[in-house]
């Protein structure tokens, strides 16, 4: 048996950030959003309705622990305690398993709200490419959902599918996007019906002489075609915004933009935090409604 450690090509970079220019101790309302997804978990802390910090990490095999660990990252860096947070909202696949959440809201509403903050109030169409499902969402100028469609039938067209391909190709997942453009000509897409079929087809292509880059390009194209067929059902209205981990894969994003004939709004923020950010913003709005600013303990 090999004693060498198996390299995890699918493992994406976890991140933790706080805005050191803001003083959370001076804030009237501190809210947190916890997005426990099937693949990743995020915690976002907002102070007075503005993004203060976030932590994005891989979801473990236990949703309550994942939620706790995600928030602990921000608390540790900022010096904040859980008791300092006025209101916590859970969202995502494991939203009902966030032990310290006051309320759970679906990720559909939270992603729309988060995209509205990240991309501006001109965002009308959101494509959330998550770890295990993909959602097409329309929203109004306030980030309220007006129409949504969800693909929860399989992993094709999702982040987990991309992780499978990264492992198969033995290429770090962050390199897949750029490498998909390093081909002489754009190949035909592989099967987009099922990630298991796509994996088998990718193996066949490698054996038939395709380069790794060409196979990656074929998979990125398949993923783009898959989600475009989903989003076309509700239509694309500009501005268009992509959330979720796949938004970081330039190979998929550029192909989606080409198929839809529109460019996605750029953001400096991490696209993976949109759901948790939306949840934290929902919390802020709820606290304003309840008059929390006047009653917060001194």
């Amino acid at each position, binding site marked *: 048996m090999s004693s060498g450690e198996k390299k995890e090509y699918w493992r994406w970079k976890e991140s933790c950030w706080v805005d050191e220019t803001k003083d959370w101790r001076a804030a009237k309302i501190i809210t947190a959003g916890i997005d426990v997804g099937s693949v990743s978990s995020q915690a976002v802390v907002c102070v007075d309705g503005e993004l203060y910090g976030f932590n994005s990490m891989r979801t473990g095999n236990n949703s309550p622990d994942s939620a706790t660990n995600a928030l602990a990252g921000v608390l540790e860096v900022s010096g904040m305690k859980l008791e300092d947070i006025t209101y916590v909202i859970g969202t995502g696949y494991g939203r009902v398993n966030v032990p310290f959440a006051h309320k759970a809201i*679906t990720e559909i509403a939270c992603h729309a709200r988060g995209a509205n903050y990240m991309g501006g109030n001109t965002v009308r169409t959101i494509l959330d490419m998550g770890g295990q499902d993909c959602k097409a969402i329309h929203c109004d100028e306030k980030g*309220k959902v007006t*129409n*949504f*469609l969800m693909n929860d039938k399989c992993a094709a067209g999702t982040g987990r599918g991309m992780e499978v391909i990264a492992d198969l190709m033995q290429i770090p997942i962050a390199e897949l996007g750029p490498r998909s453009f390093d081909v002489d000509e754009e190949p035909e897409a592989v099967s987009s019906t099922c990630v298991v079929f796509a994996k088998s087809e990718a193996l066949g292509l490698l054996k038939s002489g395709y380069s790794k880059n060409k196979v990656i390009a074929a998979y990125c194209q398949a993923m783009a075609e898959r989600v475009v*067929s*989903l989003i076309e*059902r*509700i239509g694309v209205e500009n501005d268009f915004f992509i959330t979720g981990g796949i938004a970081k894969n330039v190979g998929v994003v550029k192909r989606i933009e080409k198929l839809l004939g529109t460019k996605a709004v750029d953001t400096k923020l991490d696209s993976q935090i949109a759901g948790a950010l939306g949840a934290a913003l929902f919390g802020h709005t709820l606290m304003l409604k309840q008059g929390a600013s006047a009653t917060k303990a001194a």
Partner: protein
Amino acid sequence: MIANYGYKDGSGEFYISIDTDKCTSCPVEHACLTGCPKGMFEMITDDYDDEVIAVKQAFRRSLAFDCSDCKPAGGYTSLPCTTACTPGAIKHSW
């Protein structure tokens, strides 16, 4: 809000779309709940605290089969759910 419940697969697109804005002021007291012979609809409180109709989770991945009895081949000339919903909030894609 238009909520689309269902899926697309190799045999077609199978979505039930519900205009939840029409549910919040339903003049027929959510007749769809009893109108569907299989009881596929339920009342939920959505993310904006409105009470609206939704397709039950258990039916969302099998609409093509579950709704087949109410289609013309099953002897119906119109769908019981859309007939019961006089505000026209419910639509089938197939």
